[in-house]
């Protein structure tokens, strides 16, 4: 069986490089970060499963309100917030600390130092988050969107995060070689941006509340930037790393990647105010947010073009590689979700979509179809290199892919359609409110069904992962990487 075509022998992928020295170097780096990367991946998968349970409860409650309705512990608001924080800070941050930092270490071409620091910070991060989510469920929820974790858990989160950020900058400082790859810019920037956003938001909203709606402006500056300046750069960094690695040819254009990075850095962080269109804040603030949201079309098109041109002609390889199947799904979603997001910032569109399920659908489009899919791809690439084993089951990978792909597609379709209907009907005062509520129910049921697909996908992922972790995949290493083509064509692959 032939591997991906070796167009560029400079690539240091074990799959595409014959250079024993490069491989030995990477192997040494992988060994140095193995413990912490495994810890973060295991944590991420536990949070993914916990977040999935909270999601199912939330989705079901949306159309069966009395379900688990006998206790304050399981109100819709608390379950939804537990879901959001488990996914964003549990799954999202842990998987970034796993995959993102691993990529950083590899690109810095130097075995990591102070791996123990990273591990300790990671343990505290997860303790802080557990305390925070238990706090949410117990009723200490702040009811500030994306910042629901109660005040007694956040300092621990901020501190452990800061340690991880410092570690990332240190890894960068001790790098070897002159060239800094585009993934490193994104990761470095994300590591720097996130604590700034988080600490400012905590101070201005929770600890020393700013006056009135200044809190809301800060809230949406923060919350939108969690996506824009944290999850997005990390997912793009991962895609920029994996696409050339797996395909064995360099990224299409260096200049496009520079343009894409700086346009994102400059425009994205102004965009969050579009969550307050029509709200009680000065119009100039909203206009600034709208302009930035529209300008985001530039980095999105640029990055989309760059990724597309990098994989063009190699679609078969993309489809066969577990990593790229997920990454390319995510990259395509990035283009789509961002263009939809830009148009949602237009006042006449926002007048309809604001306050509806459309926005909920959009959030999942970004965080799941884009960010999470790319990170799944990252895990599929990283684990064999960390463990020197292969994924035990191609079938489970396929189940994961199709469960995720179908599940998220059904969810996005349902929420976008009903969100739009809901928005149009709410803007017509002659339609009674309860009638609109009734109209949403069948679509919310469809969302619950989509959640079942996603649950199956996540269980398949977790089973395959732990199966591999506990050595069952050792045999597979002798047969070569686990790929997804049919056995007929490729042998066991």
């Amino acid at each position, binding site marked *: 069986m032939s591997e991906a075509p070796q167009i560029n022998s400079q690539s240091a992928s074990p799959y595409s490089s014959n250079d024993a020295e490069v491989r030995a170097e990477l192997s040494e780096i992988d060994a140095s970060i193995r413990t912490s990367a495994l810890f973060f991946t295991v944590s991420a998968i536990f949070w993914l499963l916990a977040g999935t349970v909270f999601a199912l409860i939330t989705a079901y409650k949306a159309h069966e309100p009395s379900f688990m309705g006998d206790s*304050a512990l399981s*109100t819709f608001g608390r379950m*939804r917030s537990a879901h959001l924080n488990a996914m964003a800070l549990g799954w999202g941050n842990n998987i970034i600390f796993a995959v993102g930092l691993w990529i950083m270490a590899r690109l810095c071409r130097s075995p990591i130092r102070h791996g123990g620091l990273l591990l300790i910070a990671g343990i505290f991060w997860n303790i802080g988050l557990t305390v925070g989510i238990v706090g949410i469920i117990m009723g200490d929820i702040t009811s500030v969107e994306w910042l629901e974790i109660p005040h007694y858990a956040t300092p621990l989160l901020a501190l452990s995060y800061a340690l991880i950020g410092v570690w990332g900058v240190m890894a960068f400082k001790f790098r070897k070689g002159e060239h800094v790859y585009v993934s490193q810019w994104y990761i470095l920037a994300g590591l720097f941006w996130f604590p700034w956003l988080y600490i400012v938001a905590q101070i201005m909203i929770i600890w020393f509340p700013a006056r009135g709606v200044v809190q809301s*402006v800060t809230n949406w500056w923060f919350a939108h930037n969690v996506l824009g300046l944290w999850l997005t750069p990390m997912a793009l960094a991962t895609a920029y790393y994996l696409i050339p690695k797996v395909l064995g040819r360099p990224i299409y254009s260096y200049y496009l990647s520079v343009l894409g990075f700086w346009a994102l850095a400059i425009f994205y962080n*102004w965009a969050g105010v579009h969550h307050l269109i029509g709200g009680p804040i000065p119009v100039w*603030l909203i206009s600034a947010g709208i302009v930035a949201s529209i300008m985001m079309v530039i980095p999105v098109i640029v990055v989309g073009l760059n990724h597309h041109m990098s994989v063009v002609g190699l679609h078969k390889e993309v489809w066969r590689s577990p990593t790229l199947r997920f990454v390319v799904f995510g990259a395509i979603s990035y283009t789509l979700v961002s263009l939809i997001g830009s148009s949602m910032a237009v006042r006449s569109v926002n007048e309809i979509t604001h306050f509806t399920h459309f926005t909920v659908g959009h959030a999942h489009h970004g965080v799941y179809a884009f960010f999470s899919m790319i990170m799944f791809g990252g895990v599929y690439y990283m684990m064999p290199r960390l463990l020197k084993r292969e994924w035990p089951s191609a079938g489970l990978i396929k189940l994961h892919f199709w469960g995720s792909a179908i599940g998220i597609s059904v969810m996005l379709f349902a929420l976008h359609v009903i969100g739009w209907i809901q928005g149009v009907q709410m803007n017509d005062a002659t339609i009674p409110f309860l009638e609109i*509520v009734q109209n949403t129910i069948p679509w919310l049921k469809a969302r619950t069904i989509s959640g079942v697909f996603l649950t199956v996908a996540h269980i398949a992922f977790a089973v395959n992962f732990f199966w591999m972790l506990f050595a069952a995949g050792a045999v597979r290493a002798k047969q070569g990487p686990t790929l997804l083509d049919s056995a007929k064509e490729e042998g066991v692959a």
Partner: protein
Amino acid sequence: MKNLPLLFCGIFFALAFSFTGLILSSNIQLGSLTQTTEMQDENGNNMEGETLYPLTAPGLAQQGKQVYIEMGCIYCHTQQVRRAGFGADVERNWGPRASVARDYILQDRVLLGTMRTGPDLMHVGGRPLNKDWHHLHLYNPQITSPGSTMAPFAFLYETREIDGAPSANALKFPPNSEYSPEAGYEVVPTRRADALVEYMLSLKLDYSLPEAPIAE
């Protein structure tokens, strides 16, 4: 990219730019807003002897707001009214005017919200819904709003045997309601339910501000 100082500067200033532009400047513009009278004199001073708005919420309502926060009501209810002509907020009687920044200056936690699974509550205390209605609605929304997807908050109420005369604050179920307690029993609000209803009743946008007069 080899010029690292430039990379760092770029990363720093990109966020510093929006932090200054959005956060600091909105704080400069809005951070010193104070209460005013409904109308001001030609110099922009408050009218002497008139009530200052927005009003400070009474203590029980403040506690009710805490219940609202703890229950996560914000995830289905907004507290902001968009101007007439942008959406149908005013036509739906969610408020007689758009809410503006000054309406929120006394709140330690601003609960604008982003989702209207249920209706906006900025002016719910100004709608023709009394305390009894609110209690029944919280106890089980199906009593007052059949088909609603709001969850029942029955755990904020206590069902107990009537001891002597029925309590004055017992819920007044409509006749033959399938949700009424068994004969000899009554449903009474806990203090938290009382506080939450008091909070609902305190939410009113029935006053003008100089920058946001209520159209006659």
